[in-house]
């Protein structure tokens, strides 16, 4: 059986010369939930952008057995990886909630009744079915974050890649998002600073710093190692 995500010796340098990823190796099994933590600028978002070929570094990336390096696979890989950006403002580029959630399946060329079903299903999974006719612009941040996740769920991806899903949320929105992610049976790679959430729903944790993976182990074990956490600008939940 293939890994959901296989990354071998991935390095990436931004056009301005900044080395954002250095020799990253990461394997994620199907249905595994992995947290990606590390200080700002560690390369977490850059790594997520590689999962569906938005950025192309040196090295090998396979998602569900398909090589991302092969540009022919790119559009297929994008159907398999649901990448949710940190700022929902970027994710929600259509005027209404319906149009935004429908974008992925519409682009894939699915028939309209199937698209409609996908939109309703995805919105009900995130508990936002009543927002279907709303205008994205007028929603609160918590609502936007949920709808941003629905915009990729409607493509029925295999892997969910989320960039800081709980940042900026009030406690209640955060709590409901955590419970929702915990109960969602999918392969997940989630970049975050929310160590409480990491402890709660991610059995495995990957620490990145300065473009490198510095630790990759069970969350509970890494959370005990306060020296390691401190060395990489992190803090264990009390």
């Amino acid at each position, binding site marked *: 059986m293939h890994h959901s995500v296989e990354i071998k010796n991935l390095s990436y340098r*931004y*056009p*301005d010369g900044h080395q954002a990823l250095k020799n990253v190796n990461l394997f994620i099994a199907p249905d595994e939930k992995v947290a990606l933590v590390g200080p700002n600028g560690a390369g977490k*978002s*850059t790594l997520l*952008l590689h999962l*569906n070929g*938005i950025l192309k570094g040196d090295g090998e990336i396979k998602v569900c057995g398909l090589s991302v390096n092969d540009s022919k696979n790119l*559009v*297929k*890989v*994008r*159907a*398999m*990886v649901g*990448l949710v*950006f940190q*700022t929902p*403002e*970027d*994710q929600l*580029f*259509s*005027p209404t909630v319906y*149009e935004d959630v429908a*974008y*992925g399946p*519409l*682009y*894939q*060329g*699915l028939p309209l009744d199937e698209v409609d079903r996908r939109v309703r299903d995805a919105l009900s999974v995130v508990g936002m079915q009543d927002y279907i006719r709303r205008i994205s*612009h007028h929603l609160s941040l918590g609502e936007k974050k949920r709808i941003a996740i629905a*915009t*990729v769920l409607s*493509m029925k991806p295999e892997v969910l890649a989320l960039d800081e899903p709980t940042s900026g949320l009030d406690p209640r929105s955060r709590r409901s998002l955590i419970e929702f992610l915990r109960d969602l049976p999918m392969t997940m790679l989630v970049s975050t600073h929310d160590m409480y959430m990491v402890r709660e729903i991610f059995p495995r944790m990957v620490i990145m710093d300065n473009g490198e993976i510095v630790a990759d182990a069970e969350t509970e074990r890494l959370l005990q190692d306060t020296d390691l956490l401190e060395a990489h600008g992190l803090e264990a939940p009390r």
Partner: protein
Amino acid sequence: MHIHFLDPYHPLPSLIHSLDARVKLILVVGFILTTSLMPVGVWAGYLILYALLISAEILSEVSLRYYFSRALFSIPFILAALPLPFTTHGRVLAQFQLDGLTLVISAEGLARLISVALKSWISVQAAILLAVSTTFPDILLAMRAVGVPRLLVAVFGLMWRYLFVFADEALRLMRARAARSSEVDGYRSGRSLTWRAKLTGGMAGSLFLRGFERADRVYLAMVARGYDGEVRSLPLPAWKKTNTVVVVLGLFLYLLILIMGSFIRSIG
């Protein structure tokens, strides 16, 4: 993930870089003025102006290739001048029949077109020379020093500051769209061109809306820090005597070139 490549400034230790920004602004604007005042068809005049500019470009230590590729921006101006050979009366060079319509290319018209093309090519490169060798804040300072209204300078400054924010935002939107533009077996992806065009239009609209809201927030942040509609600025740096010498010499040289151009025109 930011856009840096928009900023044309190259930090280099060249002679051109070390000139005072005010001197450069005056000389570049004067140069562009001289170029546009140079009479039509005085090829020697264009040659001298371009030689002068190329020398400055070489002194700036930025590769000439960079100047040439950026100067392609002048092409739209040249396009606007394309009808000139057909609309100017003069000695007939060629004549075609097109659906009963007679098109005449005149020598005078052609000379005008080539002059306009050369003028835009040279002027755009002069502006690039300024942008390559001077940081934008310095250019703003120079504008203020030569008497451009402060409010206008402040608008330029804000535009420069937020152009990058805006470009970053557009880049992130396009990335989000690319991330969800996928294909599954058995269906043709991409839908119709009109559907995609409508979507892109929506994205442009939301970008505009956000720009509008951001302008509001920026204004409020300025008001919160005491902005009262009056733009105040830091004092200008001291003006050296050598600056005066360089400016006077430069402007005098432009005047000489112009006089020479008019002279060649009157005898030719």
